[in-house]
């Protein structure tokens, strides 16, 4: 039991922080309730998916700078398809597309041996161009039931947006995490040479991890289309935000350590901080300074706590 707490201390700390922030929000704005929570969760939806994708590639020891562009490609593809066909096949096609885009990113990194940061920076521009080719200006349409699904709450006190994140991540990540492939992903990120020597197909593992990242970006693109009702070809601010949430969520840049739960909670924390600062009418320019400060502070405190724990 103490083992489980020890291994998940970071996530537990983040949950506590999230709770404190929710109470704080309620204190500042007594009218903050279910609808407020729903809007925070909805806004967090694309951020959460971008972060989940980023977390997977960071765990495998890489980074993907093209997440926002892939989300844009998926959003416009979804909007174009949904104008012409039913929702479910369109969703499946978009998920497949995301997976393939990720595989291309990973494949290029593994085959060309060009550093991941360079390849995905190049792909950031490539996917951005692809999105504009598919849809030059915002347009298309989103299936009505999809738009409705992210609103309201079916389970009491749990906004649908939150339930959707939990469901998608659970369906993709939990089976993966428990499979040998999942262990290989952590092994590759932790020590590539040792993983190779243990018989892990390091290259293939990396490519699949990028594929999974692409699939989460597809979920993100779908959520963008559902939020706006149209497809928007210009990438949103999801790249840096996802890196920030991954770090805050306890995934070690460099690979091998962390999970997906922490980063997703970190997304919610960053969104709520933003809500609080808006409620307090803080200058938007100061807001980003405060967000940055919180990030460094939390990671610093966490590291100090981990070090002290390790020494005992």
């Amino acid at each position: 039991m103490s083992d489980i707490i020890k291994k998940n201390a970071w996530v537990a700390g983040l949950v506590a922080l999230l709770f404190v922030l929710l109470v704080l929000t309620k204190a500042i704005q007594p009218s903050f309730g279910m609808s407020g929570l729903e809007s925070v969760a909805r806004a967090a939806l694309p951020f959460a998916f971008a972060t989940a994708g980023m977390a997977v590639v960071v765990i495998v020891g890489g980074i993907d700078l093209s997440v926002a562009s892939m989300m844009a490609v998926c959003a416009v593809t979804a909007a174009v398809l949904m104008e012409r066909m039913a929702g479910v096949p369109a969703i499946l096609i978009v998920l497949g597309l995301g997976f393939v885009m990720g595989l291309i990113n990973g494949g290029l990194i593994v085959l060309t041996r060009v550093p991941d940061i360079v390849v995905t920076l190049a792909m950031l521009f490539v996917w951005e161009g692809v999105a504009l080719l598919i849809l030059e200006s915002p347009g298309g349409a989103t299936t009505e039931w999809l738009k409705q699904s992210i609103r309201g709450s079916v389970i009491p006190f749990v906004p649908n947006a939150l339930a959707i994140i939990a469901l998608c991540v659970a369906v993709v990540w939990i089976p993966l995490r428990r499979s040998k492939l999942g262990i290989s992903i952590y092994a590759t990120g932790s020590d590539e040479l040792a993983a190779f020597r243990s018989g892990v197909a390091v290259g293939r593992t990396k490519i699949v991890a990028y594929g999974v990242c692409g699939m989460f970006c597809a979920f993100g693109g779908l959520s963008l289309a559902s939020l706006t009702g149209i497809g928007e070809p210009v990438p949103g601010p999801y790249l840096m935000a996802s890196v920030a949430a991954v770090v805050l969520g306890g995934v070690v840049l460099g690979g091998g350590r962390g999970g997906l739960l922490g980063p997703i909670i970190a997304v919610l924390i960053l969104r709520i901080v933003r809500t609080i600062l808006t409620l307090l009418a803080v200058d938007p320019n100061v807001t980003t300074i405060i967000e940055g400060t919180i990030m460094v502070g939390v990671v610093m405190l966490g590291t100090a706590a981990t070090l002290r724990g390790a020494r005992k």
Partner: protein
Amino acid sequence: MNANQILDASGIAKSFGAVKALVDASLSVSEGEIVALMGANGAGKSTFVKIITGALTPDSGKVLIRGKQARVGSPAEARRSGLVPVYQEPSLIPDLDVADNLRLTDTPVAPFERWVKELGIEGLSLSDMVGDLPLATLRILDLARALASEPDVLLLDEMTAALPSDLVERVLKVTRQQADKGMGVIYVSHRFNEISELCDRATVLRDGQTVGDLVIEPGVEDRAVELMLGQRLDLAAREVNKTRGTIGDTPRVRVKGVAIAPKVTDISFDMFPGEVLGVVALEGQGQDELFECLAGFMPPTAGSIEVNGTTTAFRHPADAIAAGVKFVPGDRADALLAQRSVRENIALPFSARMSSWGWLKMRHERERVAHAIERLQIDTRAQGEVQRLSGGNQQKVTIGRWLATGVETLLLFDPTRGIDVRTKRQIYPLVRELAEQGSSVLFYTSELEEIPLACDRAVVIFNGRVVDIIDAENADEQTLLRAAYGLTAQEGAA
């Protein structure tokens, strides 16, 4: 040819660009046979090991497994064809727990746990994170994992290098037992005593070629060294010229009743100028802490350290350095600037003192550096990056640079670990020369045979306390080993 032959590699060649690592290497193992693979550093041993285990593919030559041509393209394929390696560096994943590491290689858990016990590791939990475990334990887990997959051929690469003596014995015993049951073993090692105790045959590699296949019998050592070096070794040269003589009666360093919680309980000794003082200890007896304490990494919890008659309290490595105490860590990577030249690395201690020396001494510095490089016998590559040198040559730089700079007290922590015989024999004279210059050298080594070769006296540490101080001249390995096990009391060693 014999019917029981499991692995037969022949005519293996491999080049990296213009460098021919292997020219014509061969090796075979039969059922129940333990074959040593020997060779000086740079002979191509590690390349050969990587090819046999699938981590590299050869340019030419063939590997037969049970008479059939095998394409071993990756460690995973090698594993499937029954060839399981235990590499020199642990190949367990630090961020996974033990259970996940086993799943990664499809290793059955029950036999693994049995082997772990058999090999003498107690209290291991499968949920332990690998990164939290000590190095010696990792090596044993690596071996237990290999054994649990019931290999046809087990390859052990410097398996015992980081192990304390009691674990070494267990490893040798288990290896012998398994060989008697029919497993073939390739045993890569620098340690003659283990090879002669354990192995049936020895394959010797020199300059990328298999130059000999020896049956292990008394006296084979000299023949093996001869093959490795490519020339008849002058046995007299093994005796390092020792001009004994401590200078003066005042100890350079006096360690009095030092304790460092929790491992070190009571250590006292004196080090005189002009003396090489050996430290003999089994793994984990507190020698690591003693060296770190003397180097200023941490203060002692009790007792005192006097340098040149003054009681000192080192709070920081800078304090120790200021007091003339220099530490050469066991890990060469910690001591050198890998991407700089040999010349720069040797001059580094000078540069650190540059502000007080002024520009007038520059020429003098250059001369002394040049002399040191000449002395180290690696002059041809003095302009190259240190990281391109072999481990042995790197270690020569870490020690030899103090010849140029001059040093009062030098702490050498296991400087010859993983270094070939030839280079080792170049290191002992360096250490002696330092002593002749008036330095005091504290010399911990995990290889007992080095004590009489390099030291004047030896402090034996057991369980955190000094149990004996032995005159190195009369210290044969057996005496030292008995002392290291805390057995001196009955017989008296000297």
